[in-house]
């Protein structure tokens, strides 16, 4: 089984979010980048398939040379090889079109994406990729097993979960649950050493039009201070929720 894990290179959750150039660009100054958490769950699940079922795991990212440390980290975690499509991603549709080319050239059986990236929260790449390839697609996946040519996939639905079967090739949008947080892999020294010599191929992007772009950013208005209510005066809390906030 050939698995492709699509990795997004995103600011760490604790990063300060600021904008520059008249609020038209994200300020990368001092920002620590990580593998998008939803992708990391998928990557760890892919490594499980590699260890248990002999899968080959390729990771791919669409990004400039500055994103290579993130791919090297994925290699250190255990991926066999990596591909970087040398382009600055503008929108999800553009990214999906680049990924579709990679999939067509690599004949992958299973393509694992995170259900959304934690920077733009677009949530569109996995579905668009499946749509462009006309592959089966399951979103919000919290479990996947593969037997021969068939995958059994569990997805979250509102108020519960649903298990489906789908034939390969398959694209999934994954999230926590594919593996538990405690099972996420941290690269060890040996992994980091071998990652240096694993293949990382750079390819040039295919021509694709821009479907959308972020033209301006805003930060939320500063929040007014919390109103503290004494625990002896819960009637006041109810009064405020009813008359001021009007939510009860």
């Amino acid at each position, binding site marked *: 089984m050939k698995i492709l894990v699509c990795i997004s290179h995103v600011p760490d959750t604790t990063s300060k979010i600021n904008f520059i150039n008249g609020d038209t660009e994200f300020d990368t100054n001092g920002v620590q980048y990580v593998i998008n958490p939803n992708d990391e769950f998928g990557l760890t699940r892919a490594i499980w398939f590699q260890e248990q079922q002999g899968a080959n795991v390729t990771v791919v990212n669409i990004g400039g040379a500055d994103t290579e440390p993130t791919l090297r980290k994925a290699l250190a975690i255990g991926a066999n090889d990596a591909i970087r499509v040398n382009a600055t991603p503008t929108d999800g549709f553009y990214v999906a079109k680049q990924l579709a080319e990679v999939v067509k050239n690599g004949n992958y059986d299973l393509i694992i994406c995170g259900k959304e990236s934690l920077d733009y929260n677009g949530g569109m790449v996995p*579905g668009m990729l499946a749509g462009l390839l006309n592959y089966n697609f399951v979103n*919000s996946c919290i479990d996947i097993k593969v037997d021969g040519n068939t995958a059994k996939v569990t997805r979250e639905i509102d108020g519960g979960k649903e298990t489906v079967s789908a*034939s390969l090739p398959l694209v999934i949008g994954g999230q926590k649950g594919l593996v538990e947080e405690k099972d996420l892999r941290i690269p060890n020294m040996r992994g980091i050493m071998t990652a240096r010599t694993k293949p990382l191929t750079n390819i040039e992007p295919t021509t694709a039009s821009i479907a959308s772009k*972020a033209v301006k950013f805003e930060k939320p208005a500063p929040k007014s201070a919390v109103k503290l209510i004494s625990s002896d005066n819960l009637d006041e809390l109810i009064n405020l929720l009813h008359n001021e906030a009007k939510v009860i």
Partner: protein
Amino acid sequence: MSLLIYAESSEGKFKKVAFELASYAKKVAESLGTTVTAVTVNNNNVSDLSKYGVDKVLKVTNDKLSNFSAKAYADLIVKAAQKENSKIVLLSSTTDSLYLAPLVAVGLDAGFASNVIGLPVNMSPFQVKRSAFSNKAFNITEIETDTKVLALAKNSFGIVENQSSLSEENFEPTLNDADFNIKIESVEKGSGKVTIADADVVVSGGRGLKGPENWGMLEELASVLGAATACSKPVSDLGWRPHSEHVGQTGKPVATNLYVAVGISGAIQHIAGINSSKVKVVINSDPEAPFFKVADYGVVGDAFEIVPKLTQKLKEFKAANS
């Protein structure tokens, strides 16, 4: 060139988000001097849509669609958009709508903006405001394609009544066998409980509650508020509560009118997931808990005393105001 909305139903009844979406679409349609068409699936009673400004309904009735299939639903929405020559297609932000949205975008070769939180700020070029960076910022997205697909964030626009005269039409798009390639094996769903996705109020507990045996008081509070219960990540990691209740950045997002957090310190990942809720009440024994910085109302003290007392007082309030 009517606007098209997918008005989502559950068990033959419209979800509340469908009415919010209709309200939003009507406002956009008015500014463009056009109408709103809704496409519905296996819903026989569509007249409610006229209260929120929908002008025309395309009713799809097909037993094969009784189970959700993202591909089939996306396919019929694409065909409805083509039939109506709709250049703007609007969807809700439920799990199912967000699942099918990118497939619709590919089908219509349309740019897609999710998490949309307001009316378009500009029509030409077409620009909308959406939330990004896990609710820590907004961005104005410009969609360059001729056809646009938008997913409206829950609770961002509200339901606005706007009576219209509704025409109904049966719509029978041809669906492909390939639309049903994914087979449902089993479904696990709690019955009779308010889900986090549908709830107007969510009551959430953290490690401060000390153990799963103490969730009874939280459920009572939730019950009097008509709320869904939720929990922080450590609580689900410890197995005190099921994963489906975990809210936060890697769990479920929450965008309710009222979010009550009990014994949750307010880690940045938790806040990211719940920050688009309108009103946040925090009950915590630690006055330094970071959650108080983003809360609207706070009570410092022992949850084991406060929660039962608050439940009792809310019961009295509800009895007096019903």
